[in-house]
C-alpha cells in the first residue's frame, strides 16, 4: 500500500473532496480554514532582575527576564535617568555576550610561545598567586577603559600601579581641546540649540553615550523652532544623511572649515566677546579665508559661506567635534562654541577627568590590561609594546588580540553576571549612581573584574567592598565652565600646525576610517546580531567594505562589489569595493570594527582592520587596486 493507488474509486473520492472544498463559498471556506489562534504555551516560573549594561561606560539600567532562573530577555528600565527605558543596539545583544560559546571559562596560563594561542587552564588560586608576585606597587601599568568611577576601578587603583585609561578616540568628546582651553573636561548637551554642526564626527553612530545621543536627536527634531543639523565630514555618514545638510571635507581637514568660519565671525564682529588670547587667535586665523579653505578641504566655497552665515544668525549654536581629530583641529572646532554663545548655554563642567591618551612606547615592562583591546584598536604601536613587555596579564571575558599576548588571562564576568557599583556622568554633566546585584547566576569559573583586583590587593569580600564604596557616592550637580576660555593654545598650535599632507603619486587616495555604532570601541564583532547591523546605509554585513566615488573607481579600474587591495606605507588590507555616487571623489571610506584575528568564532577571520593602514583615526594616504 506504499504506492499511490489511482483507482477509479480513489480518483472519484479525491475529486469529490477537493470539489466540495472549492465549491464552498469563500466566506464559509475562510471560516473553516483560517487558522484558529491557540493560547500561548505555558511558561515556567517568570522572574525579573535588575542589572547594568556595562558594554560601554554609559551605565544604562536593564531588566533581565528570567524563566526558571535562566536569562531569556533584556529590556531597558523606564525610570533610569540614562536610558529611560530604551537601549542602544548593544543592549539587546547582552544575552549573546552572556551565552557566547567561546567565552573564557577559567583563568589561563600561556603554555607556548607568546601569541601562538596555546593555553593551559589553571585554578584561580594559582593564577592570582602568579599575578600577585609580578604586580609590585609603582612598578606596573594598568591599562583600562575610562569611566567616572566604579568599585572595580577603585580596587584596581588600590593595587598601586599607574592607571592609564585608554579611550576610544572617535567616541570621546574633544578632550584635548577642553584641557587646553579650559583646563578640564566639559560635557555638552545641545538640546535647545538652534544650530548643531558636527566636524569630522559621525556623532549619531559614535558619540557616547549612544542611548542619550539618539534621544537627543529625537528631541532636537521635535524642538520648535526646529534645530538645523549640519555635518562637515568626508563621508556621507548616517548623521550627514539624517541631518539637514552635508558639507564634504577631505579627511582631517574639518578643522580648517572651523577656522574659516571663525575668521569670518571675527572679521564681521558677529561673535561673543571675552576669552583670553582672542586677539592673537584673530591674527592666527587671518591666513584662512574661504577661498583658501575651500581649496584645502575640497568643500564648496559657497557652502562654507552659508555655514558661516548660519553661525552668525542661528544662536546659540553648538560645534561638535571628537578626540579622533588632531588637537589643533579639536581646538579650532571648539573655538566656535566660545564665539557663538554655545559654551555658556550648553556646556557644563564634567566630573570626568581628562588625561592624555597613554603612549604605548613609554609603558612599563609589567602590564595589566583590563578589558581593553589596544592590539586591535591601534595594532601597530601596541603589538610592539606588548611583544616587548616582560609580563602581561589580561582581564577579559573573551579572548582578544591583546589577551593573546598575555602570559596569564584572568576570565572575568560579563555585565549581567557581575555586581555593579558605579557612578556615571550624563550628557548634561550631572551624574547618577548605579548599584545592582547579579542579574543572573554567573556561568563558568569566572570572577568579577573588581573582585580579581581586590583579591590581588588587600583581599576581602567584594560584595561588601562594592556596597561600601557606592554608599559614599551621590549624584553631583553641574556648573557652566568657570573662568574665561583660553584661545592662546589654539593660536600657538596654528602657528605650528603642518598643512594638509601633500599629494603623493604612489598613494593618490585619502583614507577615511569610520566606526559603525555596532563596533564602537572596537567591540561588538563577536556578537552575531551586531554583525548584521554594521552597514545600514549600503546593506553590507559580515564583511569589510570600502566606499568610493564612481570616478575614483574608474581611476583605480575597480568595479562595484569587486575585491580590492588598499595599501599605505604602513600596511595593506583586502576588502570589498562599493561604488557609491554619494562618496567624495578621491576618498576611500572603510568601516572600523572587523578584521579580528581572535575574539571568538564570529569575529575571527571576518573582514579586515583598516587600523593596519595607519596609527590614528585622522586618516592616511592610500592606494587602491583590484585583487
Amino acid at each position, binding site marked *: 500500500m506504499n504506492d499511490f493507488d489511482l483507482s477509479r474509486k480513489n480518483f472519484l473520492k479525491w475529486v469529490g473532496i477537493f470539489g466540495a472544498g*472549492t*465549491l*464552498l463559498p*469563500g*466566506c*464559509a471556506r*475562510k471560516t473553516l*480554514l483560517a*487558522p484558529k*489562534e491557540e493560547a*500561548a*504555551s505555558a*511558561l515556567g516560573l517568570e522572574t525579573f532582575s535588575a542589572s547594568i549594561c556595562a558594554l560601554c561606560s554609559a551605565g544604562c539600567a536593564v531588566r533581565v527576564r528570567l524563566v526558571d532562573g*535562566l*536569562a*531569556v530577555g*533584556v529590556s*531597558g528600565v523606564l525610570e533610569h535617568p540614562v*536610558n529611560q527605558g*530604551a537601549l*542602544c*543596539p548593544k*543592549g*539587546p*545583544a547582552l*544575552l*549573546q555576550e552572556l*551565552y*557566547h*560559546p567561546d567565552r573564557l571559562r577559567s583563568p589561563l596560563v600561556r603554555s607556548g610561545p607568546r601569541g601562538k594561542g596555546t593555553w593551559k587552564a589553571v585554578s584561580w588560586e594559582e593564577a592570582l598567586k602568579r599575578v600577585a608576585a609580578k604586580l609590585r606597587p609603582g612598578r606596573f601599568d594598568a591599562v583600562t577603559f575610562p569611566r567616572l568611577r566604579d568599585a572595580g576601578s577603585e580596587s584596581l587603583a588600590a593595587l598601586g600601579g599607574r592607571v592609564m585609561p585608554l579611550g576610544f578616540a572617535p567616541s570621546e568628546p574633544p578632550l584635548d581641546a577642553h584641557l587646553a582651553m579650559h583646563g578640564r573636561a566639559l560635557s555638552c548637551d545641545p538640546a535647545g540649540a538652534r544650530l548643531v554642526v558636527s566636524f569630522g564626527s559621525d556623532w*549619531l553612530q559614535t558619540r557616547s553615550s*549612544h*542611548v542619550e545621543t*539618539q*534621544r537627543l*536627536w*529625537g528631541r532636537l*527634531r521635535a524642538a520648535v523652532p526646529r534645530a538645523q543639523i549640519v555635518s562637515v565630514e568626508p563621508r*556621507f555618514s*548616517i548623521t550627514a*544623511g*539624517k541631518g*539637514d545638510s*552635508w558639507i*564634504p571635507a577631505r579627511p582631517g581637514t574639518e578643522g580648517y572649515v572651523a577656522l574659516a568660519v571663525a575668521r569670518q565671525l571675527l572679521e564681521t564682529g558677529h561673535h561673543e566677546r571675552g576669552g583670553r588670547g582672542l586677539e592673537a587667535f584673530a591674527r592666527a586665523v587671518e591666513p584662512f579665508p574661504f577661498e583658501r579653505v575651500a581649496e584645502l578641504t575640497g568643500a564648496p566655497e559657497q557652502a562654507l559661506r552659508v555655514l558661516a552665515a548660519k553661525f552668525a544668525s542661528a544662536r546659540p549654536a553648538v560645534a561638535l567635534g571628537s578626540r579622533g581629530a588632531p588637537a589643533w583641529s579639536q581646538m579650532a572646532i571648539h573655538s566656535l562654541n566660545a564665539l557663538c554663545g554655545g559654551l555658556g548655554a550648553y556646556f557644563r563642567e564634567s566630573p570626568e577627568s581628562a588625561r592624555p591618551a597613554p603612549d604605548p612606547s613609554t609603558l612599563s615592562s609589567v602590564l595589566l590590561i583590563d578589558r581593553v583591546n589596544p592590539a586591535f584598536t591601534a595594532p601597530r604601536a601596541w603589538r610592539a609594546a606588548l611583544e616587548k613587555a616582560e609580563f602581561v596579564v589580561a582581564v577579559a571575558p573573551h579572548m582578544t588580540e591583546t589577551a593573546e599576548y598575555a602570559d596569564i588571562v584572568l576570565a572575568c564576568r560579563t555585565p549581567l553576571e557581575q555586581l555593579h557599583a558605579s557612578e556615571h556622568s550624563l550628557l548634561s554633566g550631572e551624574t547618577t549612581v548605579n548599584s545592582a546585584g547579579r542579574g543572573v547566576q554567573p556561568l563558568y569559573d569566572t570572577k568579577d573584574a573588581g573582585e580579581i583586583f581586590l583579591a590581588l590587593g588587600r583581599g576581602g569580600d567584594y560584595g561588601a567592598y562594592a556596597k561600601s564604596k557606592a554608599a559614599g557616592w551621590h549624584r553631583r550637580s553641574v556648573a557652566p565652565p568657570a573662568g574665561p576660555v583660553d584661545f592662546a593654545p589654539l593660536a600657538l598650535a596654528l602657528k605650528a600646525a603642518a598643512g594638509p599632507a601633500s599629494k603623493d603619486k604612489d598613494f593618490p587616495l585619502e583614507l577615511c576610517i569610520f566606526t559603525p*555604532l*555596532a563596533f564602537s570601541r572596537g567591540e561588538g564583532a563577536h556578537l*552575531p*546580531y551586531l554583525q*548584521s547591523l554594521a552597514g*545600514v*546605509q*549600503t546593506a553590507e*554585513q*559580515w*564583511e569589510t567594505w570600502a566606499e568610493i566615488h564612481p570616478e575614483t573607481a574608474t581611476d583605480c579600474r575597480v568595479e562595484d562589489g569587486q575585491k580590492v587591495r588598499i595599501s599605505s606605507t604602513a600596511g595593506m588590507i583586502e576588502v570589498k569595493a562599493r561604488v*557609491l*555616487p*554619494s562618496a567624495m571623489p578621491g576618498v576611500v571610506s572603510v568601516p572600523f570594527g572587523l578584521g579580528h584575528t581572535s575574539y571568538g568564532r564570529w569575529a575571527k577571520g*571576518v573582514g579586515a582592520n583598516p587600523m593596519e593602514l595607519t596609527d590614528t583615526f585622522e586618516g592616511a594616504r592610500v592606494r587602491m587596486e583590484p585583487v
Partner: protein
Amino acid sequence: MSERSEASPQEPQGVSRLEFLKRGLAPAAALAALVVGSKALASEVARKKEPATKEGHRWGMVIDLDKCTACGSCVVACSAENNLTLGNPGEAAMNRVIRWLKILPMNEGEYPAPKQRLAPTPCQQCDDPPCIKVCPVYATFLNPEGIVGQVYARCIGCRYCVNACPYTCKEFNWKAPEWPEEMTTGLNPDVSVRPRGVVEKCLFCHHRLQRAKEKAAAEGHRPLSEADYQPACAEVCPAKAIVFGDLNNRDSDVASLSKDDRAFHLLEELGTDPKVTYLRGGA
C-alpha cells in the same frame, strides 16, 4: 489554474446581502451552511459588511523618520526577542540573513548633494495583504486584530507569499536554524523556533499580545491598553521614533500620528493599506 484562483481566500470587501443570498442558494453553500452552522456564517457576513468596526483592537505602528537615527536598536531587539537566526558571511553574501525588521536604505542623488532615507521596515501589516491571497494552504492570514499571522506548521514552503510581498518582509528558512548549545538557553520561550522550509515574518510580537491578554484576564478581564502591549522594537527605540498602539483607540498617539500631515505609507499606490505609517523626515 481556475481552481487555484477560486481557492483564493479573499472575498471582495463589500459583499451585498443580495449577492450573498444568491450564492447561498447554491447547493454547495447549503452544504457549507450545514457543516459550519448558520451562526458562523451570520457573524462572517456581519463582519464583512462593517470591516472598519471600532470595536476590538486594530494594532498599528507609526515610525517617525525625522526622529529615527537608524541606530539599529530595533533590529537587534527584534532579533533577540524572536529567536532570529544568527547569520554568517555566507548567508550575508546571498542576502539570506533573516531579519524581521530591516533598515531599508533608499539613496538618491550624488556627490556633493546626495539624499538618503533609512526606513526601519517591519512587516507593514497590510489591511489588504498581498501575501495571504496567494497562500494555497491558509498558512498566512489576517487575524481579527489586524495582525498578519503565519502558521509555521501549516506552511508548505512554496514561497508564493515571499514573492507577493512588495515590502520584502517575508523570509524563507533555507536551512534549519543553528545555535551553539550554550546559546539555546537564552532563546525566548514564548517564540517557537522555525524549522527549515517555512516562511517567517514580523508578527508585531504577537506573543507579547497573548501574554498581555492573559495578564489582563487574570486581573479581572480589564481592557487592554498600549501600556500592556508594545513590540520589542517600539519598546527599545532610544529616539522614541517608533510609536505603537491601537488604531481603534482614538485617544492613542498612534491613531493621531497616523493622520499627521507628514504621514505616508510605503508603496501606497499598491492599495495594500498598511497599518505601519511613516512620518516624513525633514523640515
